[in-house]
């Protein structure tokens, strides 16, 4: 039988400071959740089921998808919505479980900092991805086979 200890902190409702984002956070979680269901299952279907299925996934497949603005926008939306959704979910878990306000602050910062790094990196990759960059002739064999000769 689990025993939940009485919280040791004395009870005093501290007036929360700053803007209250809780309502917007709550709405964001629901709205992004609905959109993500479509985006993620669409992503899984196109990658794993349609066409050659999971065996069709290789460098050329990804390069082909990101050549199309449609999939760029699809993946960009998935990246932003999912990372912010996940980070906000982690924030609520931290709010519920962190034992001290200072620890909570550190953990929240870590979660949102890592989400921000991933969002920036992902966005950069989606828009600057070039499967056939111009290289010096001796490095040409490093490029994928479908690249036109330079």
């Amino acid at each position, binding site marked *: 039988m*689990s025993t939940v200890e*009485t919280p040791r*902190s004395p009870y005093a*409702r501290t007036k929360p400071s700053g803007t209250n984002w809780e*309502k917007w956070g709550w709405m964001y979680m629901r709205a992004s959740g609905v959109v993500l269901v479509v985006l993620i299952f669409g992503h899984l279907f196109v990658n794993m089921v349609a066409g050659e299925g999971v065996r069709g996934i290789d460098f050329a497949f990804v390069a082909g998808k990101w050549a199309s603005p449609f999939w760029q926008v699809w993946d960009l939306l998935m990246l932003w919505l999912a990372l912010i959704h996940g980070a906000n979910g982690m924030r*609520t878990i931290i709010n519920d479980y962190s034992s001290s306000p200072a620890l909570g602050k550190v953990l929240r910062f870590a979660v949102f900092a890592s989400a921000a790094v991933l969002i920036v990196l992902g966005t950069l990759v989606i828009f600057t991805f070039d499967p056939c960059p111009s290289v010096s002739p001796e490095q040409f064999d490093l490029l994928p086979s479908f690249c036109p000769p330079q």
Partner: protein
Amino acid sequence: MATAVAEQTAVPEVQAFTVTLIIRRFLPEVDEEARWESFDVEVYSTDRILDALHRIKWDQDGSLSFRRSCAHGICGSDAMRINGRNRLACKTLIKDLDISQPIYVEAIKGLPLEKDLIVDMEPFFAAYREVKPFLIANSEPEAGKERRQTIEDRERFDDTTKCILCAACTTSCPVFWTDGQYFGPAAIVNAHRFIFDSRDDAGDVRLDILNDKEGVWRCRTTFNCTDACPRGIQVTQAIADVKQAVLRGRA
């Protein structure tokens, strides 16, 4: 008359049986930490947990402390954690529990433990007071008349009028357990009772109070509160109603 007597004698004798109660004791004068203590009690199938606690207090250990007032499920003073679930001791029949196992009884969680099954209810009532649980009406009723309300308008908040402030819901809420800052289901239920009352004019004030970092948005819909409520109030539904009202900006 004769038949009535015959019927009375036909009633089978109430069975007595022995159960083990393991009670989480805490005597602040003696104990550093709370400890579990076991009691064997002879009870009847018609007895409730409260009767077993009385048997212990009256016959075995007079130091056992717990709150009870009406003992009939309406004063809300004897909420406790029985086999891990918040229940009123006066509404829980022992025969409905698994009596082949010991029955664990402890104080409700998340409020400061004072002694045995008694907790400090002040934080609970402080949150309750914050939502202004009283009628705030700007209009004057017609002279000599009451404020009238349609059956439909009364129906909107009927469920939340049943609250007896026993704290079973709030102290079953895992979000309340974390730091005690969350308003808690009971305060929101009692805000709901006035927010959706057509005679009340301060719904927006209460919605503003509950649109707080520690307000309705901390509810994770685990339904512990609904499960714990001895009055059968759909607590999680009431909280969801308040969330929707905050989003709409009106009741």
